[in-house]
């Protein structure tokens, strides 16, 4: 699909630094409307840094990020959020001393008030969150917090959803479930940029993928082509 769809997110040759550390050395990628695009690569390759640069938590020192043709450089993170970009960040980052319900309400902050329909949809996707609605988020298990982080991002009713390692720390059965949900969310019209270490699962649901290595893109292709690529299979799918 989507070869003809308009480009939603356009990242052109961005360089991002942490202090003196040159973390991204010229990343260029595009996400078209309606796609699931995945960034795969090992620890420290710059996947999360790329997402943080897109969502405005980090500013690129060079290069340009634009969303629907609008330049995002210098736009603070909270304004980018209100443009319809929601992120489920690395390490989940739920608000630990707020209840599950309050966390979900915070997800809708940029829209003003939480929509009961959105809340019903999130509870539908993650029944576990409904059971625990009044529990403090910090007291939940890692898997439950992961569901909450994704649910919270969905509450913004995003046009572009950035998912950072949604499978991190989850039991295999939950990983399958989460990826199924990501596919459902995408089918309902949300564009997804997915960062994953679990390359096999990510490539199974994505339309296209980029492979990152030490801050640079080393491969870019259709997801099924990447899944067959020898180098990818060796490096990320654990084949000898």
């Amino acid at each position, binding site marked *: 699909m989507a070869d003809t769809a308009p480009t939603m997110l356009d990242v052109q040759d961005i360089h991002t630094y942490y202090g003196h550390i040159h973390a991204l050395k010229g990343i260029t990628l595009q996400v078209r409307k309606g796609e699931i695009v995945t960034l795969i690569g090992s620890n420290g390759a710059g996947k999360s840094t790329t997402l943080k640069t897109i*969502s*405005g*938590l980090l500013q690129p020192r060079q290069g340009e990020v634009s969303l629907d043709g609008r330049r995002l450089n210098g736009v*603070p*993170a*909270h304004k980018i*959020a*209100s443009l319809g970009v*929601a*992120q489920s*960040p690395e390490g989940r*980052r*739920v*608000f*630990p*001393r*707020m209840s599950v319900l*309050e966390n979900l*309400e*915070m*997800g809708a*902050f*940029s829209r003003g008030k939480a929509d009961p329909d959105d809340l019903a949809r999130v509870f539908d996707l993650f029944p576990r969150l409904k059971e625990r609605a009044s529990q403090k988020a*910090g007291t939940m298990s890692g898997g439950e917090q992961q569901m909450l982080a994704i649910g*919270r991002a969905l509450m*913004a009713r995003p046009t572009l959803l950035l998912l950072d390692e949604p499978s991190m720390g989850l039991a295999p059965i939950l990983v399958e479930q989460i990826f199924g949900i990501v596919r459902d969310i995408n089918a309902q019209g949300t564009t997804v940029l997915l960062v994953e270490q679990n390359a096999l699962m990510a490539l199974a649901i994505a339309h296209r993928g980029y492979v990152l290595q030490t801050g640079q893109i080393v491969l870019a292709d259709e997801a099924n082509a990447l899944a067959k690529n020898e180098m990818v299979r060796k490096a990320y799918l654990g084949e000898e």
Partner: protein
Amino acid sequence: MDFNAALFTQYLIIGIASGALIALIALGYTLVYGIVELINFAHGEVFMMGALFATTVVATVGVTNDSSGVAIVFMAIAALLASMLFSGLLNAGIDRVAYRRLRNAPKLAPLIAAIGISFILQNIAIYWKGSNPITPPSLIPTEYVRYNVLTEWFGLETRIRLRVLDLAVLGVTIPLLIGLTWFVYKTRTGKAMRATAQDRDAAALMGIDVNRTIAYAFLIGGALAGAAGMIAVYYNNSARFQMGFRYGLFAFTAAVLGGIGNLAGSVIGALCIGIVWSMSDGFMSQYIEGWGAGWTPAVIFAVLVLVMIFRPTGLLGEQTVDKV
């Protein structure tokens, strides 16, 4: 020596009133610490400036203790609101000019900036009001200065004195505490403040303007300190450029005792400190020869040291535990 219950009760009343006053200041430390992890060492001076501003407002309007009762009540409320606004804007202004630029600097940088600002404010206060203690324009009708609520309202024959001023302190503090709780837990900005305090980056991702939310925390903390300043100046019938130092350190101790970052903890800590303060100032000398108010700071800082050693998170503080 026998336990003197009446005297004890008397100092308890004074202690609770002082504690309520300290609570208003302590909340400013805790609000700001909770959201930016900065001990705002200029906070005592923001309180002091509020106190001085209140005297100016009352003097400028010219209502005195000879004016009508209605005029006096309106004057008191107006001066309270004016010093809240003044100190709130001052505190938010300091954040905008100094701390905000240092948001991503090492933690020591804003701390040193805060100490510098406290010196600046003290010097402004000296320039403004002089270095000697000033007496505020009298506002309380003479017959109320020695008025005992317990005798006049309840007909109790007792040596314990509950002054109108003691009640006024509680009458201002309690509604402010309720208002603050409502604000933090029920309003959109309050929720944004809690979210920002718990995870600043995640809050930004939700669409929360983090800098503006932090400014609100400074504004509210400053406003509470301004209210405390107006109360303190009439409670003590005196104000001076140095008053923020002692109150500030006592309130800081209260915030740490309660668990810094925890609103309810600060109030509880402040009541404890207020009671320790009044007991040390008055009650202890009955039992220990040579004990006097001069020992009070030593006692309070001993409390601070003991808390640091035995319960660094404070009475209610678990904030740092789940802030992984």
